[in-house]
């Protein structure tokens, strides 16, 4: 989900919330309504029209490789075969790239979210999603990533990326995602 969608969703949530009157309401301000940060950490727009700035000054910006669409780090999903928890060879480069990044950035933390298709028990699927997240966590650990940098969790069948009841959708949902924090 991109930020625009999230902002729209949080605006919608606010509308829905305003229309409801009972019980405990949770809002997603922690995720959806977070202010958009600029790349270099300064407030967005602060460089515009600032008097007295050195017109020849250069503030170097280094893109985090995580944000580089050409980097293998831009791949954050690892797919699994039906009833399988083995990381397929085609996803080894993705795991390797993330292990290198995490090993050279010891302050970065990653949430590994396992997912499943929606067939069968929600709780058993939650446990199966955990097994997928755990497979990725172990692979990263074997490549030297510190335990404190990782948390393997499961979303089970609760957050499907594809919602049709067909093989293509089920395959899309048999997945672990790397979510940097």
């Amino acid at each position, binding site marked *: 989900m991109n930020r625009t969608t999230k902002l729209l969703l949080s605006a919608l949530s606010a509308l829905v919330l305003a229309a409801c*009157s009972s*019980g405990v309401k949770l809002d997603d301000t922690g995720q959806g309504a977070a202010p958009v940060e600029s790349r270099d950490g300064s407030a967005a727009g602060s460089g515009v029209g600032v008097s007295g700035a050195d017109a020849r000054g250069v503030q170097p910006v280094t893109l985090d490789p995580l944000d580089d669409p050409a980097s293998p780090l831009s791949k954050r999903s690892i797919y699994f075969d039906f009833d399988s928890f083995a990381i397929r060879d085609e996803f080894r480069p993705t795991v390797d790239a993330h292990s290198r990044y995490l090993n050279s950035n010891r302050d970065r933390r990653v949430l590994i979210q396992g997912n499943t298709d929606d067939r069968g028990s929600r709780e058993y699927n939650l446990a199966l999603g955990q097994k997928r997240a755990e497979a990725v966590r172990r692979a990263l650990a074997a490549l030297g990533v510190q335990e404190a940098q990782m948390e393997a969790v499961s979303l089970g069948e609760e957050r499907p990326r594809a919602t049709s009841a067909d093989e293509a959708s089920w395959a899309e949902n048999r997945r672990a995602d790397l979510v940097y924090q």
Partner: protein
Amino acid sequence: MKALFLALLSALLLPLGATAQMRIDVSGVGATQYPIAIARFAGSSGLPQDVPAVVGGDLSRSGAFRVIDAGTVLSDTDTVDHVAMRERGADAVLSGSITRLPDGRYEIRYRLSDAVRQAAIGGESLIVGERDLRFAAHRIADWVFERLTGEKGIFSTRIAYVSKQGDRYRLNIADWDGENIVTPLNSPEPIISPSWSRDGTRLAYVSFEARKPVVYVHTLATGQRRPVANFKGSNSAPAWSPDGRSLAVALTIDGLSQIYLVPSDGGGSPRRITSSTSIDTEPVFSPDGQSIFFTSDRGGSPQIYRMSASGGDPTRITFTGNYNVSPRVSPDGRSLAYVARRNGGFVVVLRDLASGNEVLLSDGGREESPSFAPNGRWVMYATGSGGRDSLVAASVDGRVRQRLTSNLGDIREPTWGPFAN
């Protein structure tokens, strides 16, 4: 105390109003239907709830009664014309009166008589505020049911379930017939596995609001909610111990899901009670608290096992097929409802624990999350069959099914609350 609890509940959990509705479709009838005539109660017209009609609806939907219109107003003090009622086909007659008291509350007096023996069976009265008239009607239906069948009725019990509409998830509570909906939790993230404390004052559930599953205990009267299992990894599948002091949960502290006990008021360290190198999840206590049933794939496929609540070697319970999950124990501890994959579909099975005999309680093929009524006569489950997610209450003899649909969107994860007391 009861009145206070109800008043608190009413004040804090405002109904969603006209926007939230459920619909019930009943199919099948009981093996024998007891014919009962329900009179219009004296003083019942013009009230916000048609009390005798709600009583009749309850008894009729149970499948155990055939409700006959008495065709007249009959106060609890009126003499019942048993011969006339027999001619209408009734074996029993319910009559009553509703009186508004000076403090604004209502006194409902009601009486049941046996038209065959032409004798009074008994009578009672209730005093309730206007907003509890519907609850009072359910209590009257419970009383009639118990007097005529010898078993406790479940008409005044409530169910908790989760609805999903767009990107909103709601934890809802409704009367057993789907009416009177209140929403203790409204969230942008998924909610699963609600579970009632035995006294009906608290719900444990799993919420994904922290981008991972965390187990909360939610006190309904105050809206206070507290994470009781929030450890590294996933926290899920809460099941109350019968004494309400602890919860069995599935945690992933050491890798795969294993079953632990945690205090229900938070704090304390979790005590691990299974130790496999496979998945162990979906724990549920037997009613006597001595055993825990759970799902494990230690044998190569997910199956149901039973172990002592204090730990030790489990015994495998299910052997038919390669996918048997979500065990729930009946209130008398004698049977087990669970979900089985049969012929590629997921169905609810009822198993007699002593004999191993099994009957199917569903045939849609997209069922999950069974839950027993507190009198053991019904199992409610979620089904995706028939176009959208809805709830079904099936009688344990397999004869009657009630399907609840909602305009709240998809509804799932039903869990039947305890007797109202």
